[in-house]
């Protein structure tokens, strides 16, 4: 039984371990070339002091941004660390009969089936008013539409030629698509699934960094479109244009940054009762196998700073950038989601199909770690909350994607359907599964 407390026990121990780490981090820092200032993507205002210099207190805006390679920070001369690198999924989606569905496990009383397959690199999910499921991608150029008509499902390519179109959101007939550095829309999309117009851009004042540049988007109860910008590298300082969540009107106007210190969120949703925004955030790599953990965060007011890159998981000052800082300066997470687990898509469950215990719980897809010898995640978990909105428990919900420390699938996003069933996307196999509770019914009748 997997169960996590929201506050880790070993903070004192980690202090001893950190001091050892700082030495090697400092040694590496001096070996880095100071060439980052020549980066074309760095705005002129950000080309100030050298990467190794301590940033002036309170201003994350001025320092030079080193390049964003995931390998920055890897300890030198360590064989176990040298084996770790990001995992790329196969390019070709698995055929429906080759999907690992039979190996996937859900709690007693739940069922899982394939909802649709054949969508290379299926990532974020959005639901249309007429039951169409929209699916973004990151490594290919496509947004797909899963059309549900008379009990038969069909996958259409809705748009192609896009650049890392990870984010999709739907409101009042319009589909919003977030590419690496722009957000666009297709109006009346469900009336034009066979011959959709090209997306029209609503917002493109966004940096073009590849590292953590792909975006999750969603629409809030305040009728604003929310879009993040990740930190442009594993552990780097952020200028004004990075490490944030922004909201805007549906035409891209009145865009405002609402929070900072966000390293890389790829999933968020609003609590059904408090209407507060909860978001997952991926912790930094190469600090250790076990810390920091990924975070579940909650925004209680505009202007909050969630710590990155100065404070990690709410209680560890970063060995590199945390000097002169204290975690008390930043908003702490309401829950921890496992080291390197890559917690991505999350939604609160509001349906009536699942048992009452799931009502208003956060269902979170953990894509699974790469920066850890023994993999963590590659599952969907249920996070239940305390009355004060902090995380009470985290329990497995969908498992079986991890076999002999290798992925046979990787969940990215979850989406509640109108009948209360839950869809789960898998970018490793290019598929979407459907989880139901109770006597199995054919999905077509949903």
């Amino acid at each position, binding site marked *: 039984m997997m169960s996590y407390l929201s506050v880790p026990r070993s903070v004192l121990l980690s202090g001893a371990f950190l001091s050892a780490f700082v030495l090697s981090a400092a040694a590496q820092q001096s*070996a880095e*070339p100071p*060439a*980052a200032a*020549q*980066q074309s993507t760095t705005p002129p205002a950000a080309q100030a002091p050298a990467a190794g210099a301590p940033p002036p207190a309170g201003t994350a805006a001025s320092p030079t941004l*080193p*390049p*964003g*390679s*995931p*390998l920055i920070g*890897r300890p030198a001369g360590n064989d176990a660390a*040298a084996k770790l*690198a*990001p*995992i*790329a999924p*196969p*390019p*070709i989606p698995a055929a429906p009969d080759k999907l690992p569905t039979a190996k996937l496990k859900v709690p007693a009383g739940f069922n899982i089936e394939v909802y649709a397959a054949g969508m290379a690199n299926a990532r974020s999910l959005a639901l249309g008013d007429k039951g169409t499921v929209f699916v973004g991608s*990151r*490594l*290919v*150029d496509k947004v797909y539409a899963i059309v549900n008509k008379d009990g038969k499902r069909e996958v259409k390519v809705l748009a192609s030629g896009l650049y*890392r179109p990870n984010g999709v959101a739907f409101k009042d007939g319009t589909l919003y698509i977030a590419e690496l550095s722009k957000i666009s829309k297709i109006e009346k999309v469900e009336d034009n699934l066979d011959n959709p117009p090209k997306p029209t851009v609503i917002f493109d004042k966004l940096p073009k960094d*590849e*590292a953590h540049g792909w975006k999750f988007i969603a629409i809030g109860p305040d009728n604003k479109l929310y879009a993040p910008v990740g930190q442009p*590298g594993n552990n780097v300082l952020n200028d004004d244009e990075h490490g944030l969540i922004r909201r805007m009107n549906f035409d891209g106007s009145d865009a405002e940054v609402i929070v900072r210190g966000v390293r890389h969120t790829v999933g968020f949703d609003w609590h059904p009762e408090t209407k507060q925004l909860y978001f997952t955030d991926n912790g930094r790599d190469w600090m250790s196998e076990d810390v920091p953990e990924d975070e579940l965060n909650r925004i209680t007011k505009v202007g909050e700073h969630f710590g990155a890159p100065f404070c990690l998981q709410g209680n560890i000052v970063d060995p590199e950038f945390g000097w002169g800082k204290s975690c008390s300066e930043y908003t702490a997470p309401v829950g921890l989601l496992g080291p390197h687990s890559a917690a991505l898509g999350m939604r609160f469950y509001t349906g009536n199909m699942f048992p009452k215990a799931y009502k208003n719980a956060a269902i979170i897809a953990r894509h699974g770690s790469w920066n850890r010898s023994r993999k963590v995640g590659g599952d969907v978990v249920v996070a239940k909350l305390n009355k004060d909105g902090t995380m009470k428990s985290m329990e497995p919900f969908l498992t079986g994607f991890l076999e002999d420390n290798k992925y046979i699938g990787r969940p990215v996003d979850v989406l509640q359907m109108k009948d209360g069933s839950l869809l789960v996307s898998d970018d490793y196999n290019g598929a979407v599964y459907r989880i139901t509770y109770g006597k199995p019914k054919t999905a077509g009748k949903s």
Partner: protein
Amino acid sequence: MRYTFVAALAFASISFSANAEPIEQRIAPCLACHGEKGQSETENTPSLGGQQAPYTLIQLFMFREKLRVFEPMNEMTKALTDDDLRLFSDFIAKMPKPEPPGENGDPARMQRGQALVRQHRCDSCHNGDLSGKENVPRIANQREDYLAKTLGEYKDNSRHGYDASMADVMAPISPEQIADLAYYIARLR
């Protein structure tokens, strides 16, 4: 070189229309440019021998879907099925890996190249001997001109790569350093 491509394309259209042919015959047009024994003799065209099958599969997929744009390859792959892509990738992985050039490289340049490989941790993903693993390609003893061209394309992001990790790696590396890297990797023993 253009002449070779045209000949290869003509060849290709014949072989794709008769898929019952053995792989050795179907792959012949590819090897006309890429080298029959895994080692390319053609300018700016990579050696394929011993290449990691998952990497080749990704590249063939990207060529077919025009996610990587190079017209002759987009043309060669456009009629291939998913199974064809797997077949070609698996066959290429079993071809003999390319050999380093006969003469030893200039020691100063070799030393600079080696230092750059260490500094930028190429060996972390590409393996200690630069033989690659899974989706990360074998680069050891690849053609120097192709290495230099490719590193330059990753640097200016005209070649995005599948997951864009190379664009980030290349950002701080200068054109002179690219030349040294390519020189060293091509001659690695």
